[in-house]
């Protein structure tokens, strides 16, 4: 082994970023750019009822979301960058055409313990 991580300069451009946490009680709108890439969306009844009259992209999102879809999947479905998908989804959520299911994290910004335990159980059962 000729290479050692300690023997090289620190990674270039190391930006120090304060640890982000979904702080308890932080007020914010869903329409913000904080909607994470794994956020799940599901179509509401109202959204499904109104889908036929929607612009094609909005309609495609709502109709695909009869099954839960992540923001990442919406982006892939439409072939648009995540940022574009986020705007489209936020607009639909603001009108209650979509429900958004956000990750559940503790005050340390990490998934809560009981979720990790369920994840572990699920993986072991595979």
């Amino acid at each position, binding site marked *: *082994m000729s*290479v*050692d*991580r*300690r023997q*090289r300069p*620190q*990674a270039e*451009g*190391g*930006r120090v970023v304060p*640890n*982000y*946490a979904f702080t*308890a*009680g932080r*007020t914010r709108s*869903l329409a913000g750019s904080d909607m*994470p*890439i*794994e*956020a799940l969306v*599901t*179509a*509401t009844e*109202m959204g*499904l009822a109104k889908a036929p009259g929607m612009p094609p992209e909005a309609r495609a999102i709502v109709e695909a979301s009869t099954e*839960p879809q992540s923001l*990442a*999947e919406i982006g*892939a479905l439409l072939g648009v*960058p*995540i*940022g574009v*998908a986020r705007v489209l989804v936020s607009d639909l*959520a603001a009108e209650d*055409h979509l*429900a958004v*299911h*956000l*990750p*559940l*994290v*503790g*005050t*340390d*910004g*990490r*998934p*809560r*313990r009981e*979720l*990790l*335990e*369920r*994840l*572990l159980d*699920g*993986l072991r059962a*595979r």
Partner: protein
Amino acid sequence: MDSVHADGRAGTATTGVAPGARRDLLPLKILVAGGFGVGKTTLVAALSEVPPLSTEQQMTSLSDGVDDASIVPEKTTTTVAMDFGRVTIDDSLVLYLFGTPGQSRFWFMWDELARGAVGAVVLVDLRRIDDCFAAIDYFENRGLPFVVALNAFPGTDGVDDDLVRDALAVPPGHPLVHVDARDDASCTRALIVLVEHALARST
């Protein structure tokens, strides 16, 4: 009206849910990091219940003008492709795996990806071990749980795990697994070790 939620749930999540819709859907994510060609897409494909999808993330950054000292730093937008897969864990948990480009110039993207993640699998090709240093630096600095996964490329077997940990400058006993990124069971094992590690570190 106290707006403090003990569980820190991010935002007012499920407004306007159709009657009968599942209210308790919860996404989780794990990052798959490592250098070029180390097997990220292969691992995501082995685990995902759908063929890996690709999505694009646009990054705005300041170009540093290193190529030409006369250039005034300017804002540039770069598009980075990222592939991901999906694993349904139970009736409400859905796990997403994101294969992330391993270079530190993508750290802007990693910051968003790492937020709220369970942790990361850092794939290592022992023939090009330094390709994973940026990823390990990053996850260590951010305190994100990670597992080192040595990918089974030809000619990489028989290496002592402790020597690898030493070369990676991770502590003795740091979670390390041997994977064949093409094999579902092997990749699942890596995720299990990661989640066990994350649980051991959680309060």
